[in-house]
């Protein structure tokens, strides 16, 4: 990038917030997604909406790519600057502007870390439900842009169910506000939902209004062990069919169980085909009733063993097993791909079998765990990015996995977003018409294609 331009950016945000040394740029050439990296030309860290607006106006005039970034913990290569240009670092936007307990709303800047928001609203007896695994590092802006979910998705949904309003800077620098604190708001196109999950391809979010919900008074965790995968699958559907919506309903397949047990020694049965981990939450009477129902369903579906947490320590033990899933798998090999193909919940056993077939066929190591209740699986492929031959097999296995998800009526992404990794399969899911609608939206809002170019809808 020309020095003159760099100087113009420095004038906008201040010298110290424009990084140009090679060592700094290298540190913004990646995110948490394996296999994608490219150096930006400059990293710019604006401090307010006006600065974002001026930076975008200048970038748009010069047609320089702009990649908005929070903590860079996403799993879709959503923040990797594949065409160079500007990494727009939003971490200085750290104000938690307002907690409005009367309206169950919080207003925050996008650089606020999600767990910081959660701690702040906890004092009011409230929660912000989306809780991705990176809740302690990810920014609110990043999670809203990627439409992040988490363990409580079955009952509480994903980020888009909580975003009520946004302040967005458009590609040409104009500032737009949409949505607000109204519970009922049907005026106009739902621009808030459009920008939520747009992965930084339509605008740069500078303020976020989110919905909060009352914290559950109590919770109860339990675990069902199955020697037969289909029985576990029937149990998942039967729990919901019995009108119990657990906050969390997780599954771990045999490969994951073995790996977790090997690593954490938490007493999991290594021969089980599946383990279900379930938590119901709410007011005590309902929690008791729902827990009893869940146990009944697990028994009716031939669970070989059922464990119910009697106190906080036992609850922690159950969840320790689930939390160990990713680290245990990740330690097996240098590179870890965590996918998030999602299917209707009745298809979970079929999906797990399809993943196992892909693993066997292409001789790759895959452990599957995930949010069974909402059908959101995490086939986790462990490999070594430096081994080209192995990587070919890995990418073939991925093709099979995403193909299977779509064939089962599923979706490419339950909570990580599309970015680059899943881009090749987008047309399989949306068809030519769906893709042309999305590209039309992209072009209308960002005619020069400067915002996170090449991602989500591909080149345009």
């Amino acid at each position, binding site marked *: 990038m020309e020095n003159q331009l760099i100087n113009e950016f420095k004038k906008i945000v201040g010298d110290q917030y424009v990084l140009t040394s090679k060592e700094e740029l290298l540190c913004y050439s990646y995110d*948490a997604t394996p296999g994608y990296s490219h150096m930006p030309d400059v990293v710019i860290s604006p401090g307010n909406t006006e600065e974002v607006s001026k930076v975008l106006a200048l970038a748009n005039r010069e047609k320089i790519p702009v990649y908005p970034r929070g903590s860079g*913990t996403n799993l879709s290569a959503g923040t990797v600057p594949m065409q160079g240009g500007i990494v727009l670092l939003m971490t200085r936007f750290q104000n938690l502007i307002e907690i409005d307990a009367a309206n169950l709303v919080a207003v925050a800047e996008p650089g606020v870390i999600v767990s910081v928001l959660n701690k702040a609203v906890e004092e009011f007896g409230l929660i912000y439900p989306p809780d991705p695994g990176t809740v302690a590092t990810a920014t609110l802006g990043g999670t809203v842009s990627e439409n992040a979910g988490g363990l409580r998705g079955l009952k509480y949904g994903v980020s888009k169910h909580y975003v009520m309003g946004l302040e967005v800077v458009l590609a040409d620098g104009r500032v737009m506000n949409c949505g607000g604190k109204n519970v009922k708001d049907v005026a106009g196109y739902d621009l808030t939902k459009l920008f939520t999950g747009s992965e930084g391809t339509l605008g740069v979010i500078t303020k976020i209004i989110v919905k909060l919900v009352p914290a559950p008074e109590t919770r109860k965790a339990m675990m069902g062990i199955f020697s037969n995968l289909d029985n576990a699958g029937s149990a998942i559907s039967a729990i919901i069919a019995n009108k119990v919506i657990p906050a969390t309903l997780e599954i771990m397949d045999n490969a994951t169980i073995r790996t977790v047990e090997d690593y954490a020694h938490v007493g999991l049965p290594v021969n089980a085909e599946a383990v279900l981990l379930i938590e119901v939450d709410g007011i005590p009477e309902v929690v008791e009733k729902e827990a009893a129902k869940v146990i009944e369903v697990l028994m009716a579906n031939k669970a070989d063993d059922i464990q119910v947490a009697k106190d906080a320590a036992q609850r922690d033990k159950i969840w320790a097993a689930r939390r160990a899933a990713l680290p245990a798998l990740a330690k097996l090999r*240098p590179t870890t791909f965590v996918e998030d193909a999602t299917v209707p919940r009745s298809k979970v056993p079929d999906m797990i079998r399809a993943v196992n077939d892909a693993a066997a066929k292409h001789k790759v190591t895959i452990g599957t765990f995930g949010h069974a209740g909402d059908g959101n699986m995490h086939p986790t492929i462990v490999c070594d990015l430096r081994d080209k031959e192995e990587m070919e097999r890995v990418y073939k296995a991925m093709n099979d996995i995403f193909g299977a998800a779509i064939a089962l009526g599923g979706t490419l992404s339950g909570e990580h977003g599309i970015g680059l990794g899943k881009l090749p399969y987008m047309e399989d899911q949306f068809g030519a018409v769906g893709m042309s609608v999305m590209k039309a939206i992209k072009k209308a809002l960002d005619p020069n294609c400067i915002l996170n170019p090449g991602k989500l809808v591909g080149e345009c």
Partner: protein
Amino acid sequence: MSEDKQLLEDVQDAIANCMKCGNCMEVCPVYKELNVESQVARGKLALMEAVLTGNTEISANFDKRMAMCLSCKACADKCPCGVKADELILRGRQAAVKMRGLHPIKKNVFRLLSNRTLFDFTLRMAGLFGPLQMKKLPRRMAVMARFPIPGLDRKRVLAPFAATPLLSQYPTTVTVPNPKMKVAFFAGCTINYVYTDIGQSVINVLNANDVEVILPPMQHCCGTPVYMSGDVELAKAFAEHNIKTFTETKADYIVAACGSCAEAFKKEYPELFHNDKKLSEEAQQLAAKTYEISEFLTDVLHFRKDNLGTVDTAVTVHDPCHMARGLRITKQPREILNAIPGLNLVEMKEPARCCGAGGSFSLANYEISRKINDRKIADIKTTNTDTVATSCGSCRMHINDGLVQNNMNQDCLHVVQLLDKAYQAGSGKK
């Protein structure tokens, strides 16, 4: 391949294990203040990776970024992949030293440090003439510079150099009537030349438990400061000297009153001499009988509790990084404090969060180091205690500075000093 790059090549697989999840961002004290990716473990490992793939060189900028680490080990503790980023960053520094040489100031300091006699002489002189340069503050063991000193922040509060080093205050053997064992005390630079009060307490407490204390006069710096700066050769020279000196004492145990010094004996020395079987064996034998003082008092000595007097004070504990994450010693200091009658232990929010000292880090980066410490001081404040107990001289100095800068009156002491007080208060009970 050049030797400097070879140093990184050796750890290529370890670097590849970083899956770039960024969990280290949650716990890195430096990243929390600066919010820049190159200051967190993930970024530093990416830089090393870039050197290996030929995307960048070991430049001054590389060197600078590797230096921005407190070696607090919080990232390694948090890492889901088990990547020991703290050790890899040291490797990065070693490569930088090989390639570019040491920073000129460090070079001079280390040259002085490598000559034990000259080093000892210099620090003794500092103790004698220090008062000319440093003015005493009303609180215990606190001084401030009278005039600007290069490399030192003017308003920073330090501790005075001792007029007489600890090792000169005592005979080589401090014995008791019927000793049940012989323990060699590794004082370390901070306790020998600055916080002699900690050393005195160690000796008193061991004596009170019928232990004969040997103070090998030829002991030298443990080597951690030079090792952390990437100068492995010098670290090895120090290690060899100390291994010989302490093996000769034929003591039953070796005790240190500083997490980093104890860690050097217990973990680093045995790692340093892969190519020298004899030294390696001696290092391992020493490591097996080396203990940090609190660990020794509780786990080996089962210290006397029947003659403890009352110490009426409310205490909060700061766990030094190399105690909590290096040696995994956190229960033992609390066991000691809880045994003291009248002492009320109040835990702070994150007792094992780095205090920001990081050895020479705080000299080179005082402003950041102060910000990190201010968070610690704020945590101390909410406990409403009057004493901070810790197990490291460098933490003690930095926390004392923080207390003064934040206009607080608490005192910061080593755990063993409080136990010493309790024995003194109970001296009639014998």
